[in-house]
C-alpha cells in the first residue's frame, strides 16, 4: 500500500495582500522553470499563471460577504515512492482532491519532483465563488481533510498527516 503524506502549510497565515500572487508563483515555480497548470475555478480561458492570480483576486474583490483575512490555504500531498514510479493514477488522485474543493472554492495545484518523493502543491482560495457560501477556515479545512482521508482509502493509499512519517 502506497503511503501518502498530507502536509498543511498555513502557519504563516497568508494574510499579506500579495499572498495569492506569491503562493501561485511559488507552486508553479514561475521564476525558475514554470510547471504545468492544473486548476479548477478559472474565469479567463485558457488559464495562465497571471490570469489565475487575477481570477483569485477578482473573486475576493467582488464577494459581498464571507471574505477571510487569510487569502489562501496551502497544502502538500507527497507520495512515499521514488519519482520514477509516479503514474497517471497518482495524478488522478491529485485531481480528485482538487475536485473536492472545486464546487465551492477556486483551487490550483502543481506537480513537483524536486525532492526524493513526488508531491503536489495545492493553493485553495478561502473565498467561495458562490454567493453567500462560507469562507474556507480551519474548521472547514478539517472537514475537507477528512474527505481526503476517505479518498485516499478508496485509492488504497495510506494517508498520514505531517509528522507521522517524513518524506516531503
Amino acid at each position: 500500500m502506497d503511503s501518502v503524506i498530507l502536509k498543511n502549510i498555513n502557519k504563516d497565515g497568508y494574510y499579506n495582500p500579495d499572498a495569492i500572487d506569491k503562493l501561485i508563483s511559488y507552486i508553479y515555480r514561475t521564476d525558475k522553470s514554470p510547471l504545468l497548470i492544473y486548476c479548477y475555478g478559472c474565469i479567463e480561458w485558457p488559464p495562465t499563471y497571471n490570469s489565475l492570480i487575477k481570477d483569485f483576486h477578482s473573486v475576493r474583490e467582488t464577494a459581498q460577504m464571507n471574505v477571510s483575512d487569510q487569502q489562501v490555504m496551502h497544502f502538500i500531498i507527497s507520495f512515499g515512492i521514488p519519482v520514477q514510479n509516479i503514474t497517471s493514477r497518482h495524478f488522478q488522485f491529485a485531481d480528485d482532491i482538487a475536485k473536492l474543493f472545486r464546487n465551492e472554492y477556486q483551487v490550483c495545484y502543481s506537480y513537483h519532483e524536486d525532492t526524493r518523493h513526488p508531491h503536489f502543491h495545492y493553493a485553495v482560495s478561502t473565498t467561495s465563488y458562490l454567493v453567500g457560501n462560507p469562507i474556507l477556515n480551519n474548521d472547514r479545512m478539517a472537514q475537507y481533510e477528512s474527505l481526503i482521508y476517505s479518498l485516499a482509502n478508496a485509492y488504497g493509499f495510506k494517508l498520514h498527516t505531517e509528522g507521522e512519517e517524513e518524506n516531503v
Partner: protein
Amino acid sequence: MNEKYTENVRVRLTVSQKKIVDTIAQRENISSSDVIRHGLFDGKSSSSYSIMIQNNLFKNEVINTIQSMDDISKNDKEKIIKKVNTIGQCNLKKYK
C-alpha cells in the same frame, strides 16, 4: 410584473446548496423560494464570475486529465490541449 405564481414546486438540493439558500434567505429576510427564483431568473443577483467559473470546470477537468496521461506523447497532448482551448470560442475568421 404581475405574473401569477404556479402551485408549489418541489426542489431537491444538496446539503451545501440548501445551506447557501438558507444563509441568503436569512440574511436578506426573504423566503427560500425568492432566493432560488432570483438566482435562476434575475441576472442581477447572479455572480457573473461564478457562472464563468462553472462553465470552465469541465474544460479544467479535461485539461487536467490530458496533462496527466502517461500513455500519449507530449506532441499529441499539446495538439489536443490547443484544440480544447478553442472549445466554446467562435472563430469568425473561419467563416469569412
